[in-house]
């Protein structure tokens, strides 16, 4: 393993070959390489093009409904302050990404990528989806721009996320069931890549998280960074200073990198990424690739992966379909090894408790993904002084999860 890259800034990567230290890169079949290089070229042009960002910003405002609020959560703050040792218990803020159009942060990235697709002259859209949030967001932008769209989704996820499957169909997308392997997010990505290789001349692949071959991790991060940029402005306006702690769940890691990235060079801002620990990291049913995995190559990038000693990918488990993936974005692997972000595992049970607590105390039904972030609060609030500021990214709303939660709680609907 190579030593972490010595840097003065945490915001200069990836390097020109698409690497974050030893992570990232472009590990794809030769057929895809020319397109990946074209995409990078086109993205570099778009980055410098004020018209591109003007269109992005306009859609963010009027189509997505941004900025999303930064909300002070008074009852959560009081609740944890009461449980914490004297003088502990910071002010808790929620970044309300669940209020976006389509109910999660996923739409931010989809808007950016479909604008790139159109710039590149691609006429068809594909995407993979786990929980269905990225599928719905992709189907939404495809409808908005009138492009045909195929969504690849694991057969198991189709079963456990029926409302989102129907939403995608209503939006005009074709949902393709992936029957191979574990029939979840990883397999939908395999099938999307297989389709893409055969249709690379006219098809743009909207990858849903900050992973995959370069430049995807970079451009997804850049589109999602609107979360952190807004948070920065909003907390300065409300509190006159930067937050002390940022918390976000990490599946592939796009909502987390979007919140974290604009703050990476502010040393006073600490960050906690939450991995899904499923039934527990000492069992074989979890999705905590940093805690329980090692670096490897899958889906176009080098990153931490759940795998056996032969490099075979092992199946992930999380109650949250959006976190049920055996890897994570390469920038998170680098931020982990460089020590800039602390990554913590949270179990299914802890996430379920946080889900209920948030419903009852704040009147907000969070996604199970975001519930993992909320579940870090008992420990973090017990350690932080009460004059500190903590921001949790409530990345999605939990309407899609009520059936899963009901089943886990033994409630019949």
């Amino acid at each position, binding site marked *: 393993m190579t030593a972490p890259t010595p840097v003065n800034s945490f915001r200069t990567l990836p390097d020109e*070959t698409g690497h974050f230290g030893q992570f990232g*890169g*472009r*590990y*794809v*079949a*030769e*057929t*895809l*390489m*020319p*397109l990946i290089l074209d995409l990078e070229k086109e993205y570099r042009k778009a980055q410098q093009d004020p018209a591109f960002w003007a269109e992005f910003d306009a859609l963010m405002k009027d189509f997505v409904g941004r900025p999303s609020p930064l909300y002070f959560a008074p009852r959560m703050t009081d609740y944890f302050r009461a449980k914490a040792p004297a003088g502990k218990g910071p002010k808790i803020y929620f970044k309300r990404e669940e209020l976006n159009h389509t109910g999660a942060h996923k739409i931010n990235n989809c808007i950016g990528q479909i604008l790139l697709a159109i710039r590149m002259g691609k006429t068809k859209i594909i995407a993979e989806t786990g929980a269905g949030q990225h599928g719905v967001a992709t189907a939404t932008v495809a409808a908005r721009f009138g492009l045909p769209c195929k969504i690849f989704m694991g057969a198991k996820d189709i079963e456990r996320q029926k409302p989102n499957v129907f939403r995608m169909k209503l939006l005009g997308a074709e949902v393709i069931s992936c029957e*191979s*392997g574990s029939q979840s997010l*990883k*397999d939908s990505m*395999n099938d999307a*890549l*297989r389709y893409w*290789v*055969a249709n*690379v*001349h006219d098809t743009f692949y909207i990858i849903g998280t900050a992973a995959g071959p370069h430049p995807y991790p970079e451009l997804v991060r850049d589109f999602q960074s609107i979360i952190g940029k807004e948070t920065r402005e909003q907390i300065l306006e409300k509190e006159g200073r930067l937050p002390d702690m940022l918390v976000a769940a990490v599946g592939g890691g796009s909502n987390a990198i979007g919140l974290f990235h604009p703050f990476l060079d502010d040393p006073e801002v600490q960050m906690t990424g939450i991995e899904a620990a499923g039934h527990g990291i000492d069992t074989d049913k979890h999705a905590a690739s940093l805690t329980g995995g090692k670096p*490897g*190559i*899958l*889906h*176009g990038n*080098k990153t931490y*992966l759940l*795998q056996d*000693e*032969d*490099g*075979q*990918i092992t199946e992930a488990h999380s109650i949250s379909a959006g976190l049920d993936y055996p890897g994570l974005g390469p920038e998170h692997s680098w931020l982990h090894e460089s020590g800039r972000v602390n990554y913590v595992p949270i179990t299914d049970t802890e996430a379920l408790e946080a889900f209920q607590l948030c419903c009852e105390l704040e009147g907000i039904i969070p996604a199970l993904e975001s519930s993992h972030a909320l579940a870090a609060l008992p420990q973090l609030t017990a350690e932080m002084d009460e004059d500190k500021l903590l921001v949790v990214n409530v990345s999605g709303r939990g309407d899609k999860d009520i059936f899963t939660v009901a089943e886990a709680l033994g409630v019949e609907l």
Partner: protein
Amino acid sequence: MTRFETAFAKEINGKRRAALVCFITGGDGDTAANLDALVEGGADVIELGMPFTDPMADGPAIQEANIRSLDAGTKTADIFRMASEFRARHPQVPLVLMGYANPMIARGADWFANECAKAGVDGVICVDIPPEEDAELGPALREKSVSLIRLATPTTDATRLPAVLEGSSGFLYYVSVAGVTGMQQAAQGSIEDAVAKLKAASTIPVAVGFGVRTPEQASAIAKVADGVVVGSALVDLVKQHGNEAPEHLRALTSALAEAVHAAR
């Protein structure tokens, strides 16, 4: 001469003939018996697939073969055992390991290259390491004189081709369709154009694969290319016939070899 050079230099009636390259997935069925059947049928080069849980560049036939192999408990150590036993039985036939990056680098590229050299493996095809990421595996293989066999595709244009050829040896594998293994075959005309361009740029032999199933297709390709690769059609026979597969593999390989060797 290397085993590759010998295999691609065979002549028939005083003329250089094309080589038949046959692929099966290691650990799917009785691999030793299946490999012997391919050699007996007339295969000039053997590609042994290393199973992987996530074979993203493969169509259903080889995906399923990967799953059958892993479900049967195949480990990387088993693949190297199959390779070294093959080498002992067939000292002259070039043997290529084909697979995906993660199993190849799981214990480090140096470890993998060393095991290849020890087992008598002549070359490695890694589907998901393009020239841009050569450092991951290429230097370790070259250090041990194991050929890195790169893929060129219909999307590989003239500006990329030098990078693809740089550091590759053994032969160049032309993937004739933009797609996954075992699906449709490319039009003959497009194959001829592509092979002519590749051969003009390359000093190593050019073998053509993806979607080649019948002696007729193989014969047409063998007229222009140095080698013809057949995989999914053979893997289908392993699925269909299980332990009875060798006789069927031998029959198809014979028909393919006859067509390929006599094409010119």
